[in-house]
């Protein structure tokens, strides 16, 4: 029972990070129908930027409390990522908006490789140990343990989601975003500037990715230039799982995926008599995805859109 509870806690933490990343994918997809392959790399840049800031602050202002350093690093990472994603959209995706559908996909993949390579040149390819800035003493919780970092991850995720929902559902910008996602041409006729809305979407997505990147690095204690790839891939899976283009779907998909992975990793060994070990954890996501999509071809919450060519 304690094992199960522990795995549920781990799964929620993992899932909330996936959810934040998945939101970035799903928002971009909802508006311009593009799989933004470079999204995972934005997360990586966020994590590495915050690492640089933290190391610099620890050296030059050694008296500053840990949480303040982390907060400042997080804010700077958000700003850097927002600027980066804004630039990526402007350079690589905007000129191709009316091109064949695969063209922006290829530039997105190119951007992803480019960012990884640049990060490798700037930050060197070694693994960097990410300092623990929050108290590391674990909290007992009915037999399972949870760290302060993990509590913060859950809290920050909840706050970010609430803010995002407020922006999307109750502000002018949010209404413009929903309108553009629904039908860009009609939205433009109604006075919505599609370029502004798309830029805003990329910026919001980048901020969420930066938050997730800092969380990811502080939870696992390392950062490296390839760290964005796997979480990016899984978060995209989560977005599709929940029904791509659907915000609630991305959150539910992300959290479910985190739970499935962590519970699966804990139980697959005994269940299959040791044949499949926990090193298969990275493919649970895809196995579940294939099963779900076979049964529900547009994801858990995806709308059944009429077939369009």
């Amino acid at each position, binding site marked *: 029972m304690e094992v199960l509870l522990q795995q549920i806690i781990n799964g929620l933490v993992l899932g909330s990070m996936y959810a934040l990343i998945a939101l970035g994918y799903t928002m971009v*997809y909802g508006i311009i*129908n593009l*799989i933004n392959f470079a999204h995972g790399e934005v997360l990586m840049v966020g994590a590495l930027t915050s690492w640089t800031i933290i190391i610099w602050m620890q050296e030059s202002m050694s008296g500053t409390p840990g949480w303040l350093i982390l907060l400042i690093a997080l804010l700077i990472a958000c700003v850097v990522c927002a600027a980066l994603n804004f630039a990526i959209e402007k*350079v*690589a995706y905007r*000129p*191709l908006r009316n*091109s*064949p*559908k*695969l*063209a*922006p*996909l*290829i*530039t997105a*993949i*190119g*951007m992803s*490789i*480019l960012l*990884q*390579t640049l990060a*490798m*040149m700037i930050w060197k390819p070694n693994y960097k140990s990410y300092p623990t800035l929050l108290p590391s003493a674990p909290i007992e919780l009915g037999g399972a343990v949870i760290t302060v970092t993990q509590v913060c991850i859950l809290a920050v995720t909840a706050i970010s989601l609430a803010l995002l929902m407020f922006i999307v559902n109750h502000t002018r910008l949010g209404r413009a975003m929903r309108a553009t996602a629904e039908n860009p041409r009609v939205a433009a006729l109604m006075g919505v500037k599609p370029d502004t809305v798309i830029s805003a979407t990329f910026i919001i997505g980048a901020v969420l990715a930066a938050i997730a990147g800092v969380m990811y690095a502080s939870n696992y204690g390392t950062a490296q230039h390839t760290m964005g790839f796997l979480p990016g*891939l899984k978060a*995209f*899976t989560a977005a*599709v799982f929940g029904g*791509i283009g659907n915000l609630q779907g991305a959150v539910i998909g992300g959290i479910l995926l985190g739970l499935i992975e962590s519970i699966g990793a804990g139980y697959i060994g005994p269940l299959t008599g*040791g*044949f499949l*070990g926990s*090193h*298969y954890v*990275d*493919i649970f*996501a*895809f*196995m579940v*995805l*294939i099963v779900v*999509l*076979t049964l529900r*071809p*547009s*994801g858990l919450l995806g709308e059944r859109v009429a*077939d369009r*060519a």
Partner: protein
Amino acid sequence: MMKEHRLLSFVIAAVALLLLPLLLQPFGNAWVRIVDMALLYVLLALGLNIVVGYAGLLDLGYVAFFAVGGYMFALLASPHLAEAFPLIAAAFPNGLHLPIWAVIPLAALLAAVFGVLLGAPTLKLRGDYLAIVTLGFGEIIRVFLNNLDRPINLTNGPKGISQIDGISFFGVSLNRSLEVGPITINSVSLYYYLFLALVVVSVIICHRLEQSRIGRAWMAIREDEIAAKAMGINTRNLKLLAFGMGATFGGVSGAMFAAFQGFVSPESFSLMESVMIVAMVVLGGIGHLPGVILGALLLAALPEVLRHVAGPLQAMTGGRLDAAILRQLLIALAMIGIMLMRPRGLWPAPEHGQSLAQRQGGA
């Protein structure tokens, strides 16, 4: 007049292609090796073009079929299985070394079966849903290859399988150099001729497919699936056929890769490879054979060539730009730059309307 010109240029191109490895040989086998690998990528790109270009099904896990073919060849033509299983060792004391005439068709068949297996549950999916499922499929295959070394050692895990037999035709092994009169043809050049022959055959197959009833049906599905269905096209079978055909190409290239390298490991079959093959097809000109070949040659060979001449650049930047980084940087910039300048690819297929108008004008 025009016809003679075409024939002449065709003959010149053929002679140049045949002489290329002999001219490159004196500069070192590494150069011929680059061309060999580029030809393998052409083969892969042609196969993927059937799925993505003709049928319009975005497959981001194509490398899985390459892996299946490669591992099939590796298992059936290396000492590995005999070392791992006493039963097989008893039956084949020298290790399992099946002839290529058995192994290559088996590799192609197995890849085709995997292709249909992947195709079957994904028939209802469209566009990006399909992309992510195929991507996941590629990863699943790779993770299994990486971990199937226990409890039974089937794939030897991350260490991979080595000592794979080369290819030999009627007693002529391609792994030893061949003396033809005064000329010595190195092993890499022999493989060049084999791969070239395969590429030529594949181009003919693809060209014939494109013009056939099946090819036209695929393109109809690509343009509008519902309309295609309404015209009486069996979309289910044709989509499965596209997956199966594409996978067969992947399987054969995988077998060739295993024989050429003499070694396979899961590392060669990462997601990045799938992505690169898609990039080759799209950069060159999706669904257009000359374009696809151009894209494959460009992305496969150019970075390697530049890697060989990158020495001075490396010295200039104080070692920060090493060869691997430079290669990645170039690939990334090429992908972004080419797409921005030519969104339909370097050498795209002529527009539908235009080609029709030209044909009517010419007739």
